[in-house]
């Protein structure tokens, strides 16, 4: 392994330069792994926030209902859907809802809202409604209502106050008015939810709208959030018909899907930029090393070293630097990632497309991030070395003798 010894000793000739080059590669690797973890963390938060707040991981509803949320488009025979949901082993929980736009009126104000009729026992298994309740006892009976705390502020009501809910009947010909008492305040985070949502009992909602046993929406939670986004979901195939549609969360919220795609694209672009910057540093370092050894290369060629050998030596030297950098970088990223995973990174609270990103983001570290980043860095470093390797391989041996004159 003389060539390996030669390569190793060559990179140790100028320890300062090699250290700086490795530092550059280590930095790129650590930043890449941590940024990837951070983006994965944000993605996880967005997906969890989306699927666990209200939307669920999948929804079953009457075709056309999601276009306008027309209360008249409800599932009037949901028993088959309930049976399918109960029979599916991948389904962890489900909840059915009645939803209608309505006007809430207090003594001081009126607000347009979306009213959800929910079964609290079912609902707390698919959404964060229970965690979101900031005060009050919750829905105890058919005359109770939960309001977003921002909505309560606008209506200038508090716990125990009465409000009137006005909505139209399903055929649109009559107004329905029901008196409710505020039994709880909730806060999901996004203002568009907390200013516009109200929850009443499922049975009360059905009675109010005279829709029998019907529902507008089934919200489903699976064993894994990725199940409903698979190309083929057995549950969906089973319940879909000319009347009924079923969709996973990515289809329901295409904007979030696009954002996740952009996030993935951003990871690749960021990675490329980082590694290209590192690559420029590596090229510079290798060229400096080659220029210092021009004469030596010429001599080795003069004594019969093939150009391929010289090129291979340069690539081997850069690979050794990459391996050293990967070893150091992976260890640093492992410990730093572990620390940030437990402590989180304070980036301030953000709201993106109605999804609240908490102020402390915890990166999501995974084995494949380390492997991919390390492989990416190694391959890119090797590719980066090809140009200087080609240059070194082309050095003419006559230069050696000219220099010796």
């Amino acid at each position, binding site marked *: 392994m003389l060539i390996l010894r*030669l390569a190793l000793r060559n990179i140790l*000739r100028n320890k300062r330069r090699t250290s700086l080059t490795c530092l550059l590669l280590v930095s790129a690797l650590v930043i890449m792994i941590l940024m990837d973890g951070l983006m994965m963390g944000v993605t996880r938060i967005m997906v969890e926030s989306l699927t666990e707040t209200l939307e669920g991981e999948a929804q079953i509803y009457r075709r056309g209902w999601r276009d306008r949320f027309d209360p008249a488009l409800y599932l009037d025979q949901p028993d088959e859907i309930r049976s399918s949901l109960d029979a599916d082993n991948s389904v962890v929980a489900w909840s059915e809802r009645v939803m209608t736009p309505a006007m809430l009126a207090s003594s001081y104000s009126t607000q347009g809202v979306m009213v959800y009729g929910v079964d609290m026992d079912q609902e707390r298994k698919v959404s964060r409604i229970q965690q979101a309740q900031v005060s009050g006892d919750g829905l105890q009976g058919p005359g109770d209502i939960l309001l977003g705390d921002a909505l309560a502020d606008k209506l200038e009501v508090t716990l125990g106050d009465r409000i009137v809910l006005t909505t139209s009947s399903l055929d649109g010909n009559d107004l329905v008015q029901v008196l409710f008492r505020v039994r709880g305040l909730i806060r999901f985070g996004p203002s568009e939810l907390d200013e516009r949502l109200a929850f009443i009992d499922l049975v009360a909602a059905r009675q109010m709208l005279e829709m029998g046993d019907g529902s507008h929406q089934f919200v489903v939670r699976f064993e894994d959030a990725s199940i409903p986004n698979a190309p083929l979901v057995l549950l969906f195939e089973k319940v879909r018909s000319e009347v009924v549609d079923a969709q996973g969360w990515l289809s329901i919220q295409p904007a979030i899907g696009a954002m996740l795609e952009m996030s993935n694209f951003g990871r690749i672009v960021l990675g490329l930029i980082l590694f290209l910057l590192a690559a420029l540093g590596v090229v510079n370092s290798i060229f400096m090393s080659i220029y210092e050894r021009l004469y030596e290369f010429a*001599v080795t060629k003069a004594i019969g070293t093939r*150009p391929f050998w010289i090129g291979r030596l340069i690539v081997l030297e850069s690979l050794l630097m990459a391996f050293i950098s990967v070893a150091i970088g992976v260890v640093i990223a492992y410990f730093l990632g572990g620390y940030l995973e437990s402590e989180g990174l304070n980036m301030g609270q953000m709201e993106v497309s109605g999804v609240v990103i908490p102020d402390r983001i915890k990166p999501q570290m995974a084995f494949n991030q380390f492997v991919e980043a390390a492989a990416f860095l190694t391959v890119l470093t090797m590719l980066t070395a090809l140009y200087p390797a080609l240059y070194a391989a082309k050095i003419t041996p006559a230069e050696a*003798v000219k220099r*010796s004159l």
Partner: protein
Amino acid sequence: MSQKTVIRAERVSRRFGKDAAEVVAVDQVSFSLMQGEFAALVGPSGSGKSTLLNLVGGLDDADDGRIELAGRDLASLSASEKSDFRRDHIGFIFQSYNLIPVLSAAENIEYIMLIQGVKGAERRRRVDEMLEIVGLSGLGHRRPAEMSGGQQQRVAVARAMASNPEIILADEPTANLDSKTGIALLETMRKLNESEGVTFLFSTHDQKIIDRAKRLIWLEDGRIMGDERAQTL
């Protein structure tokens, strides 16, 4: 000693520059070198001796003429074939030693055999043998920076010998050495010539080499002005 021709140069020319700035470094030079010769290209600076050595060693291409080394026309070889040819048939010794600084003396000698594809055990045996021949037994572990100029040039000789070449081309090998060290090195090379039958061709204006060469080819302005053999010197 065999009478096999190692080098045959026929009307070889090499020019540098263009038009008015053109310089004819080697001008219609013809000569032959037989196996076992200990010859020197001699002449003042700028006489074309190093250029001729480069051409003979396949490090540079002639503009005109034909050079045969070990029976092969150098012009017919591709760049890679020339590399292989130099590796297997020619040993080079340069003025400034030109050892690989990060390799030990033994590794420098081993390197040439490594690129020849010689197996590890044979390489190590040859390294020990070469170090002994050049009088550096026990110093194989030293790096060039830990050796004197004379010792480094001995390593260069050992490296040139290690590949079992048919000819060793030495460009001013004693120029950077003091007189005593230079003489000692030349004696080593002469012994190798006599005992191993290795052909040497020097490019020099060092009197020590001129005194010991068995043949002197005098160059001036790129032309051969004289070709003297030992008995006439």
